[in-house]
């Protein structure tokens, strides 16, 4: 099977594309399309060099979304290859986070590549069209994912701004309160108990629940702080050493979760030679600020 989605009319259109040329001549389109671009294109660091386009990947997506460029004119296999080689060059400890950001992108590109590799060419036009539509949809999904990610920043800003505002919300004066309509009450004691059950049910994965152990709650963040202090002070530590002397299972669990969280932030690396074997942890962060620590484990907050 060919490794390139060649042979379709759209691919052949390469040479008539707006950015036609040999692709090696630097970022031709990028200086001119500044106004089109809502996000800093260089941020991702991932650049694409195609026969008809050379520039940051974000810019490519932007151009496609503005219909400045036809998705069918992009050699998808080439984009995929570039992306994979880009991933290979990443320093895995430093840019792990960036790479994980691209996972969705990678998955989508792979999907596209698969679509591109499907038998085609001699088939009837209708099927080729359907194939192109499928590609369009994949890109649309990618763009959609990015759009929601971007717009969530607007939500965060507004929520934060409005959080600081104070609205008048004052209990009604006694004399007016008497005039309010009678309360409609239809719950029996049993209904009420059922409601209590609902109210006490955990709302999300909140914390390491220890209420049944009659022990205090454990903060992932606090445990992460301890892990950071211990690990930075030592070359490497085994997880066993990291929890030495800790008797409460909840703290061990929280400390383990914090290790996972720190790994997610690329702050440490770990090694486990065999399943269930000794887990060796190494501090790996070049840049570490306490701010990161402050937001660590936010997913576990309620």
């Amino acid at each position: 099977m060919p490794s390139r989605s060649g042979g379709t009319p759209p691919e052949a259109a390469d040479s008539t594309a707006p950015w036609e040329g040999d692709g090696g001549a630097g970022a031709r389109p990028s200086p001119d399309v500044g106004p089109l671009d809502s996000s800093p294109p260089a941020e991702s660091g991932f650049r694409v060099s195609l026969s008809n386009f050379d520039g940051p990947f974000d810019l490519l997506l932007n151009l496609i979304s503005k219909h400045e460029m036809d998705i069918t004119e992009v050699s998808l296999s080439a984009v995929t290859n570039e992306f994979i080689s880009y991933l290979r060059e990443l320093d895995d400890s430093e840019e792990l986070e960036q790479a994980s950001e691209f996972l969705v992108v990678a998955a989508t590109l792979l999907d596209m590549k698969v679509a591109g590799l499907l038998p085609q060419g001699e088939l009837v036009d209708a099927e080729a069209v359907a194939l192109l539509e499928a590609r369009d949809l994949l890109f649309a999904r990618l763009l959609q994912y990015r759009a929601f990610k971007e717009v969530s920043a607007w939500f965060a800003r507004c929520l934060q701004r409005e959080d600081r505002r104070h609205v008048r919300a004052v209990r009604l004066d006694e004399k007016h309160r008497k005039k309010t309509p009678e309360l409609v009450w239809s719950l029996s004691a049993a209904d009420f108990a059922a409601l209590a059950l609902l109210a006490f049910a955990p709302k999300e994965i909140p914390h390491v629940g220890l209420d049944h152990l009659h022990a205090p709650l454990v903060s992932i963040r606090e445990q992460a702080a301890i892990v950071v202090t211990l690990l930075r002070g030592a070359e490497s530590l085994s997880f066993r050493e990291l929890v030495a002397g800790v008797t409460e299972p909840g703290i061990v669990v929280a400390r383990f979760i914090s290790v996972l969280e720190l790994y997610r932030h690329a702050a440490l690396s770990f090694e486990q030679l065999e399943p269930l074997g000794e887990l060796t942890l190494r501090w790996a962060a070049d840049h570490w600020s306490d701010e990161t620590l402050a937001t660590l484990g936010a997913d576990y907050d309620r």
Partner: protein
Amino acid sequence: MRETPLTERIEAILLIIDEPIGLVALAAAVGSPVPAVRQAIETLVDDYDGRGHGPRRGFELREVGGGWRLYVREDHDDLVAEFVGGQAPARLSQAALETLAVIAYKQPVTRSQVASIRAVNVDSVVRTLLARGLITELFADSETGAINYGTTDALLQHLGINSLDELPPISPLLDDGADGFDEGTIR
């Protein structure tokens, strides 16, 4: 930053308080000496009554029980009564009912304890329940000063029971958090 006028700062505090606020507390809140605050209060009283530059207001500033608070001007009491009375028969929201249930089973309990169980801010709901006479302030925590809430006899009557002991027991395993653990997995 430019210092905003004292009257504005006082109005900001007056807008959000539930109970009358004394001159000293008000002065501390706005960071000005008491005599200046007293003076500013007088200006505002005159202002709202239409003796300043602007029109008379639909509210007034009155000293009641040793403190100052905004009240609806008495002329509009009928209007307010009609508005309040004309609202749809009150039914507690799901959020209010759940909060009430938490307070019933956990009392005495502070607002922040309830909030942490419900995972949401419960301030306005607690206000509603208080206003409805379903819960009441029991006492202030001796250390933190946080107010502890409990349920009232009115709630017992609504539920058709004689005492809290008659509330159906609920499982003690409720809050072990086990529920949450299998959810994070990606499909």
